[in-house]
Each structure stands twice: as C-alpha cells, then as structure tokens.
C-alpha cells in the first residue's frame, strides 16, 4: 500500500444466516457513483424463504456493479466494486484487499476465488487446484467434469460441477492452457486447494496472496524431455523401472475392487488396521456411513431419467424458484425419511362456531384456526411425544419444553410456514392477532428467516378452499402435522334423532417411529373433544 491511489475493494455478499448460501437479487438499491454509508441497505435479496435487505458493512463510493437483478449470488461473491473504503469485514483479509489495488481491471466479476491480482507468466505444466468456493466451504463432491484431456482451456470456462453441502456450483478456470491430465473424477470428494488438473502451456495468474487458496499454479513440474544423442547408450533399463506408485493406499487388491464396485473412492476410506490398512469392513462401514448421513430425499426427485416430453407436444422449461426448490427438497426428505401415518377424524364445532361468532362480534373477526392452535398447544403438553424430534444418529428422542406452532401460508411465491412462538403462553385472541399479522407479512414477503424456524408442530388449514380430507406431509424435523379441511353441516344421530351439526374434518399425520397408532388416535380424539367443548378453553388466559 505505497501509492496514493484510491483503494479499490469489492463488496461481497456477507453471511446471511444459517444454511443460507445464496439468493436471487430482486433489487439493487445503489448505483455506480453512489456514496454509501455503513449500514445502508444496498441490495434486496430473495433467499429460500425470505426476502432480505443486505446492508453495507463499510463506507465508500460504489464502482462497477457486478450483479444484476435476477442474478443468483452466493455468499462471498463480489457484488460491486467499492472505492475509498477502509478495510472491511467483507473482504476476508487485508492482504487480499491489497492485491485488488495492483490490477483491479483483471478481476473477473463473478468468482470469489479469483480475488488475487493477475501477474501472468508462461509455465510448462502446472497443476490447477480447486479454488475457494465460498466461506466455510472446504470440500465438495465432483458431480461432473466439464472438460476432458486434450481440451484447450479458456479462462473463465467452467471446468467442474461440484456439489457442496450448500449448493451445486460450477467452478470456472482461472487459467488457460491445454489439459494434460485430469486428477479427479466424478464422484470424488475434493478439498479446496487439492490439485484437479494438469495443464500445459498455460498462462495463469501467479499467486500473490497467501490468504485465500487460489486456482493457480503452486506446483511446477518440469516436462521430461527426451534427448536422443545420435550414438549414445541410454540404458534399456529405464523401461524396466516400475511406474511411479500411483496412490499410496494400504488396501489389498480385493478390498480396492470392492470399493470400486461400490463406487467408493478408496482414498477416502479410513483404515482401521495396522499402518492404516483398509479392510473390507472399513469399506462397508464407510459406505454405510455415507448412506446414513446423506439425506434420503432430494436425490430421488431427479434420479429417474425423464422421457422426452416433446414427443407428445411442445413443452416449456422454467427454472424452479428458490421457494419451490427448497420445498421440493424439504418435502422429499420428509416424505422419504419419515414413516407417515395419517389418522382422520371429524370434530363437532357447532358450539365452537357459536363462541367464535360471539367473540368476533365484540372483537374483530376471528377464524377457527386460533382455537385449533390453542387446543393443539394444550394437546402437545398432554402428549409430549408429539412435541419431539428424532435423532437417528444418536438414537435418541428429543423432547421440547417449548411449544411453537407453524402455520402453512399460501403465498404467490409458494408455501411458507411461519412459526408462532410459545403459543401455550398466549390467549386465543393473542394468537389470532399474531396469526393475522404473520400472514400479512408472509404475503408481503416480509417474513424473516427466524420467523420460519423453531417449529414443533404444523397446522395446515385448507378449509378455506375446500376438500373433505387430505394427508399432510410432516414438516421435518417435527413429528406431526394437523390438516384441516372444510367444515360442513351434517346430520348427526343423537338421542334417537338426527341433529344438524357443523362437522370439521381433521387429518393428523404423525411419525410412526416415535408415535404409536393408539397414541395417534388418542391425540386426535383429545383434540376433537377439546374443540367440541370450547367453553373449557381459557380464551383470555
């Protein structure tokens, strides 16, 4: 930092919250040339569930804006260039900041890994390493290798598709040259900084910062040049020298074969034997571990090859929205990992309806949902196994001492489930008020991530639309969900007569691993009876 030029940095997307790795830019709140202050909102971003406003963490003048409305941006990705700022929290290290200054025009726009300045130099054969993929991402599984040996690699060309625990990313090249050797393959788990390719004749950025692992050469291998003197005596034995030992894996050939057949990279299997020797059992244990830790859902959604729909007429492909994608993943996981049972029942809400109307008159309009939430809150206290989660890795059931109930809300963006916290401590009227406010926020896309987390039980009321019954899917990691369909007047045979009663159909899905069938029936009966005698509800307590 020796000259007086304005310091050029980049504003990068900061951490947004737990498990949020990316979002879609819905609005850019600044433009090139704007002077911004720390704390000023610069970006509106739609993530899986919420729309967030992203504040700047520094002062400065906005330079080139590197994203546009509709772009999907990842945590750590450069959003815009920033001039005249002091060192910021969003730039991982001061060293990195320094390098921007050297040659900022060479900065590629959308790749956080290429934060280093570019000083080119020709090198014969070099290794390309996996660049930093984002904050807290250390490794990923190669899902696709997008280039092959012999390809002429262009700078910025996507070379790999890699799946991290947060997202599937395409990894662009920071170098150019002829691909000589591919050191990884699809299915391999690779770490940031691990060599992935060897390329020849490339021009690559020299590594100028040690702070961030770069996609650049670190190891320079010399090309063996064969010199053949006219009449010389090179030894014939050079050809007898065994090929360099490939991977140094202490596993018998039969064990390596087993791993290969199971599609497991033997290099990743921890060996339990002397000297780290890997046994058949080690391979099997590793395989089992992969199967139990990998979420059961998700993959099954797209695993079957699709037919060519255009055979039957024209079709249109549309990218899933973030909410849709998250819903698909989440529900696939819930559906495939939870053994569901759905118990149906009908509750006589004739009395409840009278009560509801009487209160609605004096107060504002109250729907039936707050009453049901209140009853469920009481039921969860009475039946604690309905307020639990299962930890299969430790084989434990987790019982919760708090009662938070999620309510499925239909919005134009898709299904959202905001959560009412500590409903057991709220009155029906409070619940009603909170519910109205929450639904309003959801429709205005103002629901925060926090508001959608921490649920114990979910209620899905489709009665406003219609239907007689349905089988709701449990909102994992919860263990039960109550579905409400449309109530209707039915003739109920009581004391020798048919009496018209307002009957509300309920559908209770529960996780059979933790809840037995009899308990499921008891739970829904208890709920029905409580709703049938609404005077017992402590509306104001």
């Amino acid at each position: 930092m020796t000259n007086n030029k304005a310091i050029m940095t980049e504003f990068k997307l900061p951490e947004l919250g737990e498990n949020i790795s990316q979002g879609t830019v819905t609005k850019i709140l600044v433009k090139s040339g704007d002077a911004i202050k720390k704390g000023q909102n610069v970006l509106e971003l739609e993530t899986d569930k919420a729309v967030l406003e992203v504040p700047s963490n520094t002062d400065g003048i906005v330079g080139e804006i590197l994203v546009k409305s509709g772009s999907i941006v990842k945590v750590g990705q450069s959003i815009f260039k920033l001039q005249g700022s002091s060192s910021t929290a969003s730039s991982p290290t001061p060293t990195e900041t320094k390098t921007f200054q050297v040659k900022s025009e060479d900065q590629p726009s959308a790749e956080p890994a290429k934060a280093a300045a570019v000083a080119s130099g020709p090198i014969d054969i070099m290794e390309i390493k996996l660049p930093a993929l984002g904050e807290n991402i250390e490794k990923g599984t190669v899902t696709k290798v997008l280039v092959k040996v012999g390809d002429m690699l262009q700078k910025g060309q996507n070379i790999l598709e890699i799946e991290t625990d947060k997202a599937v990313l395409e990894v662009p090249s920071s170098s150019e040259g002829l691909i000589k050797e591919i050191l990884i393959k699809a299915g391999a788990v690779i770490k940031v900084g691990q060599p992935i390719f060897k390329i020849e004749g490339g021009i690559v950025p020299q590594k100028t910062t040690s702070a961030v692992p770069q996609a650049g050469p670190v190891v320079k291998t010399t090309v063996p040049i064969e010199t053949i003197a006219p009449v010389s005596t090179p030894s014939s034995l050079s050809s007898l020298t065994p090929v360099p030992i490939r991977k140094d894996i202490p596993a018998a050939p039969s064990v390596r074969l087993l791993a290969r057949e199971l599609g497991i990279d033997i290099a990743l299997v921890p060996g339990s034997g002397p000297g780290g020797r890997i046994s058949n059992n080690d391979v099997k244990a590793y395989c089992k571990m992969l199967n139990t830790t990998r979420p059961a859902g998700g993959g099954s959604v797209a695993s079957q090859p699709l037919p060519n729909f255009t055979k039957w007429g024209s079709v249109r492909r549309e990218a899933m929205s973030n909410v849709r994608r998250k819903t698909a993943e989440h529900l696939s996981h819930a559906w495939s990992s939870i053994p569901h049972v759905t118990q149906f029942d009908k509750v006589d809400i004739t009395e409840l309806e009278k009560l509801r109307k009487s209160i609605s008159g004096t107060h504002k309009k109250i729907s039936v949902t707050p009453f049901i939430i209140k009853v469920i809150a009481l039921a969860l206290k009475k039946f604690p196994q309905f307020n639990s989660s299962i930890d299969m890795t430790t084989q434990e059931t987790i019982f919760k001492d708090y009662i938070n109930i999620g309510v499925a809300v239909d919005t134009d963006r898709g299904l959202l489930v905001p959560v009412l916290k500590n409903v057991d401590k709220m009155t029906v009227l409070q619940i009603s008020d909170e519910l109205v406010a929450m639904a309003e926020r959801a429709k205005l896309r103002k629901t925060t991530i926090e508001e959608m987390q921490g649920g114990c039980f979910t209620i899905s009321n489709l009665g406003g639309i219609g239907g007689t019954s349905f089988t709701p899917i449990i909102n994992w990691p919860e263990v039960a969900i109550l579905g409400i369909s449309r109530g209707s007047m039915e003739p109920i045979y009581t004391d020798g007569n048919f009496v018209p009663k307002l009957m509300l159909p309920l559908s209770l899905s529960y996780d059979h691993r933790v809840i037995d069938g009899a308990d499921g029936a008891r739970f829904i009966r208890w709920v029905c009876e409580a709703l049938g005698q609404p005077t017992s509800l402590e509306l104001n307590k």
Partner: protein
Amino acid sequence: MSSFFQLVVIGAGPGGYAAAFLAADLGMEVAIIEKEINPGGVCLYRGCIPSKAFLHVAKIMNEAKHAQAFGIEYSAPKIDINKLRDWKKSVVSKLTGGLGQLTRARKIKYFQGEASFINSNTLKVKKADGSFEEIGFKNAILATGSRPSVIPNLPKSPDIWDSTTALELENIPENLLVVGGGYIGMELGTVYHELGSKVSVVEMTPGLLPGADRDLADVLYKRVKTLFSKIMLETKVVKMETNPNGITVTFADKDGKEFKEEYNKVLVSIGRRPNSENLGLENTKVKITPRGFVEVNDQRQTTDPNIYAIGDIAGDPMLAHKASHEGRVAVESIAGKRVAFEPQAIPAVVFTDPEISWCGLTEIDAAKAGREVIVTKFPWAASGRALTLDRTEGLTKLIIDPKTQRVLGMGIVGVGAGDMIAEGVVAIEMGAVAQDLKLSIHPHPTLSETIMEDAESFFGHSTHIYKPKK
C-alpha cells in the same frame, strides 16, 4: 464386410493372448490378429523365454566351473551350438504351439496377418497369404508390443546385432561388445560370456542397470567386473565402422577422449520402442504420445472409446506380467465390470547372475519424491542358505514408511532373487507392515528367511546380525 467380432485383439503377446483368452472365457466372440503362426509375441519367440533358456544353460556351466571350489572338477564343456539352438527352438515351439491349441479350444478366430484400422469399428487384415479381409468389431485391444530401439546412422552389417539376432545364436563370437548396460544387455552378455565370448559392456551413465537402486546394481557390477573383459561406464559410442573381422567402435570417455576397439560382434541393447506405427490409428480417435505410446486411462481405454491398449504400447514398464494384467483389466472393463489398472507394485527382475529384483518404491523413487523412508538391509553373509550355495554376496532390503511402518518397497540381489520378489509384491499390495513380515514364519534354510530377518532388523534386532547398541 465379411465378419464381425465383439472383440478383436491385435497382437498376441502375453498381453494380447491373456486378454483374448479371458474375453472368450467370458463369452465374447473374439478374434486375434497376429503376425506369427501362433500366439506368444516377443516374450515367447525372442525375449523372456529363449533368453531364460540360454541363461539356464549359462548357470549350469557356471556352477560346474564353480564346483572346483568344493573339490569337484569337471573337464571343460563341449558346446554343440546347433543342438543348443534346437533345444531353445523346441522350448519356444512347445509353448507357442500350446497357446495355439488353447486359442482353438476357446473358439477364438485366429488371423495370421497384419491389422490396420479403417475406422473406429473396422479393421483391414493383410493375411499371411497376401489376401485382404475387412473385419468389423465392437471393441479392439491394441497389443502390438515393442521392438528394439536402433542407433541411427549405423553401418548395415550382420555383425551388428539386436536382442533378436543375439537370441538366434548364429555363432559364438570371440569378442562381443554390448552397447547398453541395461537388463537386456547384461542378460545376453552373461549368456555369451558363459558360452566363451570375451564380453565388453559400454554404458553411458555412471552405473549398470540405471533405475535400479545402486546398492543392488553394485553387487552385480562387482561380480561381472571379474568375469567380463571390460566394463566401460560413462562412455559413449561415437562411431561404428565395419572391418573384415567385424566392427571397429570408436568410444568417447567422460572427458571426451576418444579411443577405438575392435569386436567381432556388437549387440545394441539400448531399449525398446512401442509399435504404434502403421496401424492406421490416424483413422481412429486414438492419441499417441511423443514417445510413441498410446494414451490410455485407468481402464486402458484409449481416447477412442471403442479401442483399448495394453502392454508395451500403453507405456512403461515394458514387462510381460504388466501387459497380461492390463489385458485382463481391459477385457473386464469391456465386459462392464468396474475395474482399474492400479498396481501398488510391479515387480522387475533382471535375470543376471546374481539376479536382481525389486518392486514398489525404490530408494531412487523415494529420494526423487522427497519421501522420508527407512531402508533396512540384510546382507546374505548372515544367511546359512547363501553360505551353502557359496553365494553370500546377496542383499535383501526393505523400504519402510517411518510413520505407519508399512512396507513400501523391496529389493533383492542374489541367486533366486527373481522368485523371492513375489513375497514383496503381495506384502505391498496387501498393505503389510514390517511386523507382518517379521511375524510370518519363513522356512529354514531358505533365502526367503532374509526377508523375515530384514523385517526384524527394522525393529533393531535380528537373530543372525549383532548390532552393537548405540
């Protein structure tokens, strides 16, 4: 197109015929295209097998001579070179004829001729009778092997041999120069020495058997120095000229000083080069490296997905046992199995006297890779069996990982070293640690005990070696 095969194997050396036989056993329709009348390749016709036949003879003669030391004296041997040649031929024809029978028994279609690719699914065969036939295939395996490298600009002379002509055993020259101190030169030099030639060796590098660890090669050097008439290291051949009695060779030593010597015959054994030309590979997507090898992946599949390549043409080391292993990998891969060519150790054996063998990591490799290793050596002077053979110059060494104590490499020099190295291969492939070799009971009295005792010495104590405490 007159015929179609699931698999066509081009070249029936140890790689090619192993591949073809396995493919047939797996139920594929297989054809072999091969120049010779029967399978066998260089290995059987003019390589491993004939050279080992002669080396056996050389060993008997040497041992008979050596028996003098025990008080047993034989008169000088009479050598009937024609009978010796016929015996070698009978060994070769027995083996290759047997392979021909195995080919027919497996219902493999055998084309004697030369193959050339028309495209990635079709070959043209020029048959031995001069006619042509087109063959369609789903997969092909290139197994065309290698041939001796030649020194350019040499005079054309019947007195300049390569390994093939040397194994013809046309005559026994009085003076023989071996150009190249590698394994082929040292093995054939040994044969001709025992048959009565005065053998000289010229080698450009500072030692014999470059690539082998020095402590192993030095044992051989010490012995052949006393047997051969001259071993010229760090010396280049500058020129060869014919003269009425043979060849006049001009050498340059390491200081560039030139000198001349006359020999009846010169054996050029400076290496081998892959046979990747004249195969019509330009009509396929197969890629060839600047050194003439065919590029292959772990399954030995070339850059043309229909075509595989195995053996010498697929890269170093050019060894029959590597080729046949690759052949089986390629066929299993074609059959849809998930396999890979991933040896941890490929054994190398030099059948000189004494033999030299090694596998896995060498000290040279470890030094190149900057890898820390512990090397333990067991000198055969402490072996009872070596003493009974009166051959105590041998050495057994282990290369061990200091952290895991795993056996990474093994090297042996001494009589029978070639047969002993297999234990090292299994140990390395199985991921054995030094304790495993130490705790496995080895039979007494054999030379294999030296491996067990060497593993013991890794732990600082070996029954037959006393090491003063530091």
